[in-house]
């Protein structure tokens, strides 16, 4: 279970580029649940995921993952518990190294980096068996540099790598956004398959309302660094794409109202 309390993060504070990306986010994710995070551009949804993954240090607030306070853990230490798939298909794998070597690293995530040969025959067979399940024909190309594969293939492999050792939390950051529609659907289907089969706890940032309605069992909507809507259980079961879009329009209207009112007041009083 993931508990986030009053999490705040401001980028470049005190400058003109100051962005208050997270403004006291409090959130609890139950074990075995699959949560979609949606929101407008700059709403802080990717920042939230990166904060959990440890890409940067949060300014204040705390994070607890299955009883362990991870707030001050460095990124690589959190990776022992957390699997990640990035938006950029090239971010999750080392392009210059072979498929087998990439997966070999994922197979030892969080274990000691010993002086044993990484890709032995036994490891190769294990990799080959599991890669076969992707049905992409990649099991015959294990010794090719992973950089020679397409974005979709690399994203599928990254997903496989992130879940090879069952993570306590899987973070998906718009992992289908950079793919063509057909590949995106395939990777989304693969995601659903793996999460249900392994009973994973997962968070997924997405821009696709359809995906948010189809895949997860909970939807949270973020706006201006905070959670504004939370569709759970029955509410989520009833939620349709149109409901989400309505909610979007509502927060955007509120936004418009805010700025126009501010302008009005400014004209009157300044």
């Amino acid at each position, binding site marked *: 279970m993931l508990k986030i309390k009053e999490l705040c993060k401001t980028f470049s504070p005190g400058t003109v580029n100051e962005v208050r990306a997270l403004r006291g986010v409090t959130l609890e994710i139950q074990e075995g649940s699959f949560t979609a995070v949606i929101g407008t551009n700059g709403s802080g949804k990717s920042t939230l995921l990166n904060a959990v993954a440890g890409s940067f240090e949060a300014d204040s607030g705390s994070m607890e993952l299955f009883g362990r306070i991870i707030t001050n853990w460095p990124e*690589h230490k959190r*990776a022992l518990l957390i699997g990640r798939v990035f938006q950029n298909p090239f971010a999750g794998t080392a392009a210059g*190294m072979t498929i087998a070597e990439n997966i070999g690293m994922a197979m030892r995530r969080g274990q000691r980096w010993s002086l044993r040969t990484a890709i032995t025959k036994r490891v190769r067979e294990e990799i080959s068996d599991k890669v076969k399940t992707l049905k992409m024909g990649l099991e015959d190309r294990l010794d090719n540099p992973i950089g020679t594969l397409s974005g979709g293939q690399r994203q599928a492999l990254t997903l496989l*790598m992130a879940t090879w050792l069952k993570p306590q939390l899987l973070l998906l950051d718009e992992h289908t956004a950079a793919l063509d529609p057909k590949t995106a659907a395939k990777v989304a289907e693969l995601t659903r398959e793996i999460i249900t089969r392994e009973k994973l706890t997962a968070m997924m940032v997405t821009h696709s309302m359809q995906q948010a309605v189809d895949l997860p069992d909970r939807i949270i909507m973020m706006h201006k660094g905070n959670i504004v809507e939370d569709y759970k259980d029955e509410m989520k079961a009833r939620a349709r794409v149109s409901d989400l879009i309505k909610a979007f329009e509502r927060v955007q209207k509120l936004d418009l109202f805010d700025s126009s009112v501010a302008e009005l007041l400014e004209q009157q009083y300044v």
Partner: protein
Amino acid sequence: MGIVLSAFTIGLILAALTMGMLISFRMLRFTDITVDGSFTLGAAVAAVMIVNGWSPWLATLIATATGLVAGSITGLLYTRFKIQMILSGILMMTALYSINLRIMGRSNIPLLDTSSVSGSTEHIISSLSGELNRINILGWPVSITDFSVFLTALIICVLAAIALRWFLLTHLGTALRASGNNPQMVRAQGINHNLMIVLGLSLSNGLVALSGALLAQYQGFADVQMGIGMMVWGLASIIIGEALTGTRSIGLTIAGAVLGTIFFRLLIAIALRWGLNPNDLKLVTAVFVFLALVAPIWVKSLRKSIWGGLRNA
């Protein structure tokens, strides 16, 4: 034959430097100029110890260890203190210049009438050949001293190459290679990226110092200036090596580094024979590396303009 043998010997000795730079420059993608300082460091430490009567093997070993330390300090400057990549190397190189002078006590230490790592090899060969001082290699008479240095350099180089290949294929080695390839991915796999950089630079400069220690023993002196330009020489060797063997596998890449260094030394020997002023050597090398870096881009755009021209015609 003498000149070819000496080019091969120096090539094999400097191959350790090239292999070291393979780790920093190609695997970690870290442009590490510490090399210029740690090369001299290895030579200085080995020379001082040998002059003071230590075993040349032990001296070489300790020299290598000092290189490991120098490299890890550069790594710490970069990772721990967030100093720019190039600047960390420059700081360490500059500091090493004074450190090397301190170690040596003066700017040049001659190694005359001292033992070297090839001493035992020479002993074995001369007892086998029946106390002659010249033996026949492929029909050429070669002095036993020269040949035993060559043989020793060959053995050390091959052992270092095998050890490096083995290491790079272990779990740790894989993590190290990936660190240069994609830091974000490496952290997401639970690997301490900073630690890998420190480790890689340490190993790299250890090999470089080993190379310096061996060269000092071969040429019979250590000089505080001997490291200047070594990094560019290593680069040139790496580039030649990649052209020779390609980079399809770790083994080929390492073999390429070794062959590239030898080939480069041969080229230099030939150029010097033809009357190239030794003072111009570093300029020529720099120009060569420049051409090797930009030529692929030129060829690409040239090919594009030719093919593009044909398509338009």
